[in-house]
């Protein structure tokens, strides 16, 4: 790791100004991903801007929903009584990620900013368009068991590794951002990008911009579940994960929000399956049909062929689980 310049700031404005002026600078909050990437030489910022002193740790509820500061810790959010009571899907997804120690370090904003866990991205001797544009994609014809089946192209088939983001995508959250040109907000589902021609970009933040909070609108989802399938029972990234949020009225599905993790460069919303489920009964047949529909456009790359079948079963199982007490 290079020895970098380290500064602390307690002002968001100062933070974004420094960041905008220094091409080789990065914000650091929990550091759980950034320090790891620096140790591996994937990234080598010359300046780290420690933003832990910014007042962005609060959870505040209002009539429209709930705002979570970008620097709130993953564990704090997962344990927060309002989150547990009203947004249990988010709490469940947060607790499915990483370990208790890492959740005590990682922030909400940092969770959104984490980079892919693709082996080729991490190994600086291997080709990776995300790390080194135009060096090629090592995973395309290599070890791609963990890789994407939606929204891929020949430049990048990496997946976004977050669990939390899958739940936030299902919950129609918005992201509040500040930058040198002022504040703005974008839909959570628009925050992360597909690889496209610029796999080096994970999200739509502009130069110097900083996430300040996320907002989740009030909802009437009364049946939710986060299902994560992985190679060991805990402390592993998802092979496939599914966030289910249903608004049920009696035995009828009024609203359905579904998102998947481990399958794309961003949390993947299953809009066709959502539409299909509206007005339906919570039957096994309907859930299997939703699962099949969810994976219709998936394409795989050899080692990850299983994800298409696993995706179908995971959607069905997550729906089944969410509604099992009906």
């Amino acid at each position, binding site marked *: *790791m*290079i*020895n*970098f*310049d*380290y500064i*602390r700031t307690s002002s968001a404005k100062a933070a974004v100004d420094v960041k905008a002026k220094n091409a080789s600078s990065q914000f*650091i909050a*929990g*550091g*759980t991903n950034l*320090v*790891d990437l*620096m*140790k*591996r*030489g*994937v*990234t*080598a910022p*010359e300046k*780290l801007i*420690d933003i*832990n002193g910014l007042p962005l740790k609060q959870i505040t509820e209002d009539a429209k929903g709930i705002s979570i500061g970008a620097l709130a810790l993953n*564990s704090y959010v997962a*344990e927060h009584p309002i989150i547990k009571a009203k947004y249990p899907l988010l709490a469940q997804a947060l607790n499915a990620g*990483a*370990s*208790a*120690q*890492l959740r*005590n*370090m990682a922030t909400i904003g940092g969770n959104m900013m984490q980079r892919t866990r693709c082996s080729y991205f991490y190994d*600086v*001797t291997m080709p990776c368009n995300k790390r*080194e544009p135009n060096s090629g994609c090592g995973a395309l014809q290599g070890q791609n068991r963990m890789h994407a089946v939606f929204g891929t192209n020949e430049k990048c088939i990496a997946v976004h590794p977050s669990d939390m983001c899958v739940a936030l995508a299902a919950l129609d959250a918005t992201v509040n951002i500040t930058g040198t040109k002022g504040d703005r907000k974008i839909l959570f589902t628009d925050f992360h990008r597909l690889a496209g021609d610029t796999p080096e970009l994970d999200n739509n933040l502009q130069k110097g911009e900083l996430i300040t909070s996320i907002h989740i609108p009030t909802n009437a989802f009364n049946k939710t579940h986060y299902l994560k399938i992985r190679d060991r*029972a*805990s*402390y592993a990234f998802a092979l496939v994960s599914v966030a289910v949020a249903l608004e049920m009225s009696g035995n009828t599905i009024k609203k359905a929000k579904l998102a998947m993790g481990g399958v794309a460069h961003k949390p993947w919303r299953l809009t066709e399956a959502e539409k299909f489920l509206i007005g339906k009964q919570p039957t096994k047949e309907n859930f299997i049909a939703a699962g099949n529909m969810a994976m219709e456009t998936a394409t795989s790359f050899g080692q990850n062929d299983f994800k298409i079948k696993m995706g179908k079963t995971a959607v069905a199982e997550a729906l089944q689980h969410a509604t099992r007490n009906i």
Partner: protein
Amino acid sequence: MSYIFPTMPTQNTNNSRRDFLKKSTAIAALTIASPVLLKAGENDEKIAALFEHIDLKLEVNGIAHTLSVEPRVTLLDLLREQLHLMGTKKGCDHGQCGACTVHVDGKRINSCLSLAVMNEGKKITTIEGLANGEKLHPMQEAFIKHDGFQCGYCTPGQIMSAVACVKEGHANSANEIREYMSGNICRCGAYPNIVDAIMEVKKGGQLL
């Protein structure tokens, strides 16, 4: 072959299998380290001069330290190599095993992923600070009683994590303990004994 350089060629026991270079179609290639690091390395002299050590004040096991550290030093390496508190272990250095678990302001974290300078003014507790003099902490007692280890290398991390697990209120059942302790890998496989130890401490209801 011309491109086998000194020192002395080896006296191989199975030369037939090692003379692959003779029949190879050699391709010259430049394989380099991380480009971003090399780029940074060009400025290294400058960087070395530019980046001063940073003053850092923190408290470890009740003892205040005033230090001067490079920003890149992790809390783990600070504890082990500068403060010589070797009880906190390096098991992976990437937040993937939990051997380096310490408490920062009462919360368990992986010290390998925390830059030391980010702990300004904080209170760190390591395994060395858990016992009260000669009197072992109840979790340490329970680990001995239930033989919650074999080689002992992951043990400080397991114990620090276990104490936090109980304090956080995540020790209400064996399954909950298993989930909330999964960030601490034990290659010797002492897991069932560790769970027994934590259950006992939880049931004992001592103030941890």
